[in-house]
């Protein structure tokens, strides 16, 4: 069985400071891991994905995530937050063994203060 846990429901940072959104996963298979972002009244957009290549994955808008198998974690980071980063972020686990089915975490709402 696969599952994903986002450790924080809400994170607040100041503009220009680092962002850390935490995610732990559980998977019986070799997982694919994703981070999606959802801005208000907009569709989900893929930020980055891990598919068993490099453990440090770079995505769009300066975000990156590191796959740590020993810790079963896939935390999302960004060195310097921008006001436009305020949104809901979802950590997602998927498996080609299950027809590409995705399982979403509960989401982390990121607020950015000026």
């Amino acid at each position, binding site marked *: 069985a696969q599952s994903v846990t986002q450790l924080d429901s809400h994170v607040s940072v100041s503009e220009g400071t680092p962002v850390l959104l935490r995610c732990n996963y559980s998977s019986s298979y070799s997982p694919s891991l994703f981070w999606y972002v959802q801005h208000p*009244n907009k*569709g989900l957009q893929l930020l980055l994905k891990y598919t068993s290549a490099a453990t440090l994955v770079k995505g769009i808008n300066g975000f990156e995530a590191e796959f740590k198998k020993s810790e079963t974690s896939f935390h999302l980071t960004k060195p310097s937050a921008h006001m436009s980063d305020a949104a809901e972020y979802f950590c997602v686990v998927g498996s080609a063994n299950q027809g590409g089915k995705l399982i979403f975490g509960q989401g982390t709402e990121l607020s950015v203060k000026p």
Partner: protein
Amino acid sequence: EAGVAQSPRYKIIEKRQSVAFWCNPISGHATLYWYQQILGQGPKLLIQFQNNGVVDDSQLPKDRFSAERLKGVDSTLKIQPAKLEDSAVYLCASSFMDEQFFGPGTRLTVL
């Protein structure tokens, strides 16, 4: 390239009424998904199609929800009769390789 299209964007109905949502995936994407996203939660897969066949509908409440993709392109999701707990955003996605592309969703409010 056009994205995943969904309509309507918003729908308000009373409980026990029926409602239908439409999705047109990205051209050439064989796999289509419907998700339900309740406020404050992550999306949950309802049904997955590969062309016009169902791959996974294990989470679809089949007593009231139905979905079809007759020609392997666009798809319709129906709820009949609706319940209060069906209030949610219904997301459609299509995929190429291992990446899913999402539409803007339909926000359903059941009164």
